[in-house]
């Protein structure tokens, strides 16, 4: 960060191509769309900004939202508010609920889904939902692009695996027939430092009284998110209603597991997480 007297270099690439060229030349420059993470809790009249900035405002492509039968593509620089306004009725319910929980209402028009994915210090509200929906991230650099599943976009410590010169351009979310979709945020806003909160995303597919698929993930104010496929598989294929013994085993494993994970959930939040999961698992619809 520079102090207010140091010069700040700002680039305004007007197109994707120029953005990618810039990113190759200045890989250290910070990409800036809504800037809510960089600017949060700055108190002085003037912002303290990184020395080199690339503004993404001029690139329409990064704000585009498109949908086909099987997926929805969201430009990384589309504001949360814009996604909710433009695509509200076409979003999977869990994604809509997730977006409505991101950031205080006042700055949802600046905060972006791309930003939510890229914040380095913690896995933000949107991350668990994208994780279980099998979302993919498009990273582009000059001359190439790659799609990375959200599930493998961070390393074990929670660091986003993005290469120098790469830009997150799109987030692709497959539209799958989940008949149970649930998102809960419990605790305070993540904008409060040292906060105690978690978000829990849960989807399930029930076919002919059988739990055909189940996924859930939990994020809190730490970089790591919690997801355990073995635990999910414990219940997949079971007939509904789930036997109470299985549910209890599931919850006990979850409780032990999450206490040892990097999510740093307090006892209270863990107990709330258990209560939410118990309710969800006990009330799965027969079809």
């Amino acid at each position, binding site marked *: 960060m520079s102090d*207010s007297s140091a010069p700040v270099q700002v680039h305004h690439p007007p197109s994707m191509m120029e953005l990618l060229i810039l990113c190759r030349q200045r890989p250290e420059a910070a990409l800036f769309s809504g800037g809510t993470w960089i600017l949060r809790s700055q*108190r002085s*009249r003037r912002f303290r900004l990184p020395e080199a900035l690339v503004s993404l405002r001029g690139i329409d492509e990064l704000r585009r939202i498109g949908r086909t039968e099987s997926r929805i593509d969201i430009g990384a620089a589309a504001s949360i508010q814009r996604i909710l306004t433009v695509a509200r009725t076409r979003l999977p319910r869990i994604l809509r609920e997730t977006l409505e929980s991101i950031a205080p209402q006042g700055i949802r028009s600046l905060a972006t889904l791309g930003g939510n994915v890229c914040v380095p210090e913690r896995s933000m509200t949107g991350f668990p939902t994208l994780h279980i929906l099998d979302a993919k991230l498009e990273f582009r650099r000059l001359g190439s692009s790659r799609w990375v599943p959200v599930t493998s976009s961070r390393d074990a410590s929670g660091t986003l695996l993005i290469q120098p010169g790469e830009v997150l351009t799109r987030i692709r979310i497959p539209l799958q027939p989940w008949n149970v979709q649930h998102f809960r945020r419990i605790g305070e806003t993540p*904008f*409060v*430092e040292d906060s105690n909160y978690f978000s829990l995303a849960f989807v399930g597919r029930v076919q002919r009284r059988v739990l055909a698929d189940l996924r859930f993930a939990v994020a809190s104010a730490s970089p790591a998110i919690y997801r355990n496929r073995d635990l999910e598989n414990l219940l997949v294929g079971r007939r509904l209603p789930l036997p109470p013994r299985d549910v209890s085993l599931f919850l006990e494993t979850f409780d032990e597991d999450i206490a040892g994970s990097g999510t740093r959930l307090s006892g209270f939040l863990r107990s709330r997480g258990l209560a939410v999961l118990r*309710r969800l698992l006990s009330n799965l619809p027969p079809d």
Partner: protein
Amino acid sequence: MNREAEEVRSILQGRGLRIGDIPDREACFVTVVRSPVSRGVIEGIGMPELPPRVRALTAADIPGTKELTVFGVSVPILAEGRVRYKGEPVLLLAGPDETELEELAEKVAITCREEEPFLNFTDPAEEQIACSRTVNRGKVDEAMAGAARRVTGEYATGTQEHYTPETQAVYARWNRDRTRLTLLSPSSWPFHVHETLANCLRLPRKALAVESAPAPETCLDGKLWYSSLVAAHAGLAAAALGKNIKIRYSREEDFFFSPKRSPAHLRYTAGLDATGRLQAMDVQILVNTGAYPVFARETLDRAAAAALGGYHCPAVRVRASAVTTNLPPLGPFAGMGSAMSLFAMELFADKLRKETDRDPVSWKKENLASPRRRLIIGETPRSSLPDPALLDLAHRMSDFNRKHAAFELARKRGAEKDEAPESLRGIGLALGSQVSGFFGAGEASLGTTVRVSLDMDGKARICSSAVPGSHALHRIWRRLAGESLGIPPEEIEIAGADTSTGPDTGPAVFSRNITIVTRTMQDACELIKKKRFRSPLPLTAAKRYRLPRSAGWNDQEFTGGGCAATAWAAAVVEVRVDPLTFLPEIAGVWLAVDAGTVLDEKEARRAMETGISQAFGWALFERMTFRRGRVPRDQFLGYRLPPARDLPNPEIAFLEAGGKRPVKGIGELAMNSLPAAFVGALSQAVGVDIRNIPVSLREEDLTPEAAR
């Protein structure tokens, strides 16, 4: 379009100016450098090199009185020698560039010899007690010993930020030859600003004028006396630089360092007879006043008078004490004094009725004061007593009894099943009151005066220093004065507060504007009307407020009618609680109100609803605590006023009663009744007796049964 509508229109168009918006490119600014410690002695101030355009000012630069005084309590304008809270103003930097001042201020190093601060108020050391109020009625110990049952309860209420729409601000402007300084101040007490400035700058009264802000802003007690301190800082800088001065606190500075609501801790013991009637009450109230006990006497009197709410008890002992701590000044806020007591008493009442297995409405009715079974302050005019019809009305509006019984049953069944239901539900009912104007004989000392004149052309002019909290006050005044003088309302001009021309009307607090000041204005109009028969126009009449004869306040005994009028309300709140997250949802709010004569029903409803939002803020949304002598930084980012989406549409009904009834202030009624009703509802829903606000929904505050 009337004048008030014109004002609103200009606000909607973005032309409404706040004090900080007044354009003046030549004006200089002031940044306050504050104490880094909670308690200690200043040993030195390390200054950065200042450019010639910037001046530093300390207490040594104050030419006159170095303190401001509010009803006998002094507060340093700039701390000298000793500092009493983290953030206490020590030094001012004045200059033309706000950003430059901000940067320089960071380089000022105030070193202090730190002393162990007093941060706790619930177990105070003797030297922390600033003042006390004791009330004794009957033989408490005897009655307690003879009671069939003894019950105790302990309650706590938290602090709250005023969060005034415009932060603390002032604009000091010299006249052309710099002989007269005019201050535009948002203060709700312009004459106090005037007095403070005159003393501090040692200026003749006539060399100063204090005018109110260009547009009305909700009167919040954050600007009751602290605006005088901010104005004194501006005055000092204006005198030192010979320039106009603008001070505008950032929201953050305001949040951390300006006064907040006093937290309180209350202990109740009651002796009941076999039927549940109150026989003896022993109440202890501790009020945290922060570093300076401003308005502490008034707070204690109001707290003591409301200690038993609307109930009668033959033997009562109340001991209320103001406790100073090394925290920012904690004092007046809507419901000051009364709100804390009424919250505690109503929850205690709920505990008492449970002990004797009574339903809430019948317990309250049975213990309610009446002309023969007196309130704590003794004989009270009938119009100031709680009317049992309020409880009936609130119950009818909300279907209270049926819902209360049904939710109780559902909760018990749920507990047996050991399975969380879809939602937990609860309903609470609480009674509250509001005293209009200063307590006891306080009003008499203010000399509230309103002047009305009637010109040759039949136009009238009303002069006062009343700072209106909304556009409605002047609209109501025009209507009332018009009716009295027999002229159309649009022919009446209302002068803005200006201490150089208008009379002193006292502070805008305790709904004084709509009760005492309005009454005085009407009296002045009546005087004009009388004079008109004998004397030619133009005519001027100044009327001074006199306490009603019935008041007869005895301060020693703590008895008498005291205030101008007392309003009452019965509030019902219904909540739904998510059993998984404990997040409460306010499902309904009903208020039955005895407001005496209602001057403008629409406006009265609005005032009530604005109060409802503040009350829920205090009880649930607005969280503020002190850690190591200050509000932690993360609380600024997390502090939320109740959002519109989380507030219900309230149902408000005014009690209709015949006869000539006084106008009663109602601005604080919601604050004085809703929190207890809400907490009662929440307690029923989660099955735990919650005793503190703001309500905490964290594990440590809920028992394991509740967290099932």
